[in-house]
Each structure stands twice: as C-alpha cells, then as structure tokens.
C-alpha cells in the first residue's frame, strides 16, 4: 500500500511542479515523459492489486480515487510533454489584434495615455483578462500567458521643411505603424543587435534602424551627452534599397532628432509588452486529479485510523 500511495504522490507532484514552475525544457524531454508514463502505469497496475485486496467498499473507493486521480494527472502531464508546442512569444504592434487559436484574441494597446501608466494587453475571451508586464501570469486552460517587456522604437520622420511624413512597414505586422518591433538581428562590430526597417513613401526612402542599449551605444558613440541612453542607428537608402551617396547614416540617442538622407529622423526607445505563451498540463484535469489523490489518501488514512 505504501508503494502504491507514494508512487501516486510522485506522479501528482511531478505534474503539479510543471504548473508551478512552467516552461522548463525538461518537461518535453523523452526520458522525463517515459518516466512519468511508467510511474502512472505502475500506479494503475498497483491500484488494481490493492483494490482486489481491499476488505471494505470504502477502501476500494479510496484506492480507486487515488489510482484514477494519479492516472488523470499523469495523462495530462504526458500529453503536455509530448504534444504541447514549445514556449513561444506573441509579439504585436501597438494597436494590433493578434488572434491565437484556443486562447482568443490578444489586443495590444496603442500605448498608455499616461506614459507612466502600465501598458496592458487584453486577452479577449468570454472574460477580458488584462496582461501587464510584471504582473502575475494568467492561466488559460492548457497554457499560461505572461507579459514580459521588450524594447521597441517609435519613429517620427519629417522632411527638411519640418513636414511630418507617413511611416509604413510593408513587411511588418501592421502596415501603418510607426512603431518598430525590432524582431530581426544584425551583427555590427561584434555586437548582435535588434534590427528593423520601414519605408517613407513620400520621400521614396527605405530606412533601416538598429537598436543599441546604453552599454552598446557607449562603445560606438563618443558623445558625452549620449552616455547612459539607448540609441538608434538610422541608415537611409533609396526606395530600391540602394545606398544614398552622401550623409545617409546617423545615430539618434535618447530620442534626439537627427538628419540623414534628406530626412529628419527621431527614434524613441520604449518598453512594450510581448506575451509569452507557455504550455502546461491541463489545469482543470490536474486540479481534479490532485483532489482525488488527496481525497483518497484522506479516506484511506481515516479508515486506518
């Protein structure tokens, strides 16, 4: 009986830990899931023996509850380990609504009206759930959603007369967004840096933007006023992506406006949420399974007591 109960508890604990500490690569490893499945089978096989040997109907019910609870929890754990997708990040431009099957639609806000207020992504399902950077993760059945911070660059472009110009991102998530999500990477001077690009159709220009953290900017910039500030390197090409002959590269540190390729460019680095989607064992099944195991244990304990 001790072996049966301890094996059931190990199975349950293993799967509960997957929810408590989600997203570890080990949960998808073959050895981990084979072990979990083997333990669940041992619980069921052993439970059958214990059930046959039980002397009262109350003990039988308790044994059945422990075996079924551990098996259900184990099935949820193995299904998640074998079939669930790896952790992934859902990145949306400000104002974009990203539909994620099963979870609903993630509505990325334009920005907080008050710059100091948190930017909240809404998970639109029957219940609207806010996802805020630093706040606790949200459970959504077989997934956990968590908002984490990423650096994005909001650009403003003007012509040399000071007239504002439209920014487009033909290859971005949102065509008319002036916010660059910086999802690509480029290596410059041995540094692997976030990179993005946008078009300025009115000026027939394509602009590449590379983001430097304050520490990286300090390596390449020798301007004392820029110390401690993130910087954006703008490289302006013509509409066919050919380099312009003169003065087409400039650094914008701390959101300062710079002149390059007949444009005034300003890049402000801001924090914006991205949503981590982490698969977990189905929380409802694990909750019911755990309650059955604990209830069965209590039932057997009372019986013995």
């Amino acid at each position, binding site marked *: 009986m001790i072996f049966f109960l301890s094996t059931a508890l190990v199975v349950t604990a293993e799967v509960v830990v997957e929810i408590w500490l989600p997203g570890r690569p080990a949960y998808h490893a073959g050895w981990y899931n084979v072990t979990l499945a083997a333990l669940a089978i041992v619980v069921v096989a052993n439970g*059958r023996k214990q*059930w*046959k040997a039980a002397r009262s109907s109350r003990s039988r019910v308790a044994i*059945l509850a422990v075996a*079924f609870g551990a*098996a*259900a929890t184990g*099935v*949820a754990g193995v*299904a*998640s380990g074998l*079939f*669930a*997708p790896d952790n992934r990040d*859902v990145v949306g*431009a*400000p*104002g*974009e*609504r*990203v*539909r*994620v*099957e*099963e*979870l609903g639609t993630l509505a990325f806000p*334009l920005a907080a009206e008050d710059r100091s207020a948190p930017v909240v992504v809404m998970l639109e399902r029957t219940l609207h759930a806010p996802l805020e950077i630093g706040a606790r993760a949200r459970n959504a*059945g*077989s*997934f956990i959603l968590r908002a984490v911070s990423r650096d994005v660059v909001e650009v403003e472009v*003007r012509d040399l007369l*000071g*007239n*504002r*110009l*439209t*920014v487009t991102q033909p290859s971005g*998530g*949102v*065509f*008319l*967004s*002036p916010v660059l999500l910086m999802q690509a990477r480029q290596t410059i001077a041995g540094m692997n840096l976030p990179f993005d690009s946008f078009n300025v*159709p*009115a000026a027939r220009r394509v602009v590449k933007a590379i983001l430097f953290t304050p520490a990286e900017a300090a390596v390449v910039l020798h301007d004392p006023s820029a110390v401690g500030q993130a910087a954006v390197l703008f490289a302006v090409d013509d509409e066919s992506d050919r380099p312009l002959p003169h003065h087409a590269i400039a650094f914008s540190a701390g959101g300062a406006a710079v002149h390059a390729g007949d444009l005034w460019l300003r890049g402000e680095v801001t924090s914006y949420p991205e949503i981590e*989607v982490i*698969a977990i*064992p*189905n929380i409802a*099944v694990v909750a019911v399974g755990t309650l059955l195991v604990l209830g069965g244990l209590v039932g057997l304990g009372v019986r013995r007591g």
Partner: protein
Amino acid sequence: MHRYIIWPAVALALALAVYVAEPYFVTQRAAAGGPSGLAGQPAPIFDLRDDRGRSVSLREYRGSLVVMNLWASWCPPCRAEMPDLQRLAEAEAGRGIAVVGVNEGESPQRARAFADSLGIRFPIWVDGAQQYGRTYNALGLPTTVILDRQGVVIRAFDGPLTLDEMRAAVAAVRAH
C-alpha cells in the same frame, strides 16, 4: 465487479487523453484579417485635429452614418478616389451620412494643400501618429471604413472604391 469497471475506465482514460491533448494541436497563430476583421466592433475614438488645427473626434458624429477614408498625399490611388468621395459627400449631405477623410502620418499643411488642390470640402482630419491606420489594421492606403449611428464598424474596404461601390456600400449600411 472489477470487470464492469475496467472498460468504462479505459473509455474515460481515452476521452481524458483526447481532452487534454487536443488544444495543443489547434493552437496556431492566425494572420490578422485586415480592416474587414473589425466589423461589429466599436470604432476607437481618438482626439485629433483637422487640417486647420481644430479639435475633432468621432464623438461629434454619433447619430450619423460615417464613411471614414484613410489616405495620404503620396498615395496615387487615394488621389484618384478623392473626387468620388467628394461627390458622395455632396450627394448624401443632409441625409444623415458624413464623409471624413483621415490623413495618415502627414502634416496639416500637406493635408490641406492636397485637399485644396482637389477641391475637397468634406472634413479632413490629421492623424499624425497613424492611430486609425494601426487600429483599423489597414493593409494599405486608401482604406475606407463605414460606421453605423452608434459608432460601430459595419463594413471596411481595403483599396480604392468607385463612386458606384461607395453608393452600394452606403445603401447596404443604411438598410442594415
């Protein structure tokens, strides 16, 4: 007795396995559907200025059907479509339909010069931060969105419309 339990237990276990594994197979990121994907949702309200610097907002148009046209001066199809929008605005004046042009990302001076050059007399708003373009998920310019009297998006069109297409869309929305 256990014989009577085994098969239901196996069936229950299989159903459970399907229940817990099924979500992992259908979870995929789907592409956003462009402006027409917003049909049925309330249009966002941003406080903007028009091409003469006056404060404007969609709130002022509650009770009217609104044809919102997103455009920019560098966009040739926008230029081609504008005269038809002006004709629509004239034809529908006084019939509870408002036509509003929303310039995306340009300066008021540029927007006004463009509208004046084409003889546009319907309201021209300036959306410098491209907020409507983003929230309407415009796939390009022009983009036209029709709102009902409560400010809910009824129809949205990607690309230029002819006058006949505009009239048909307005008639359909009016009948809605």
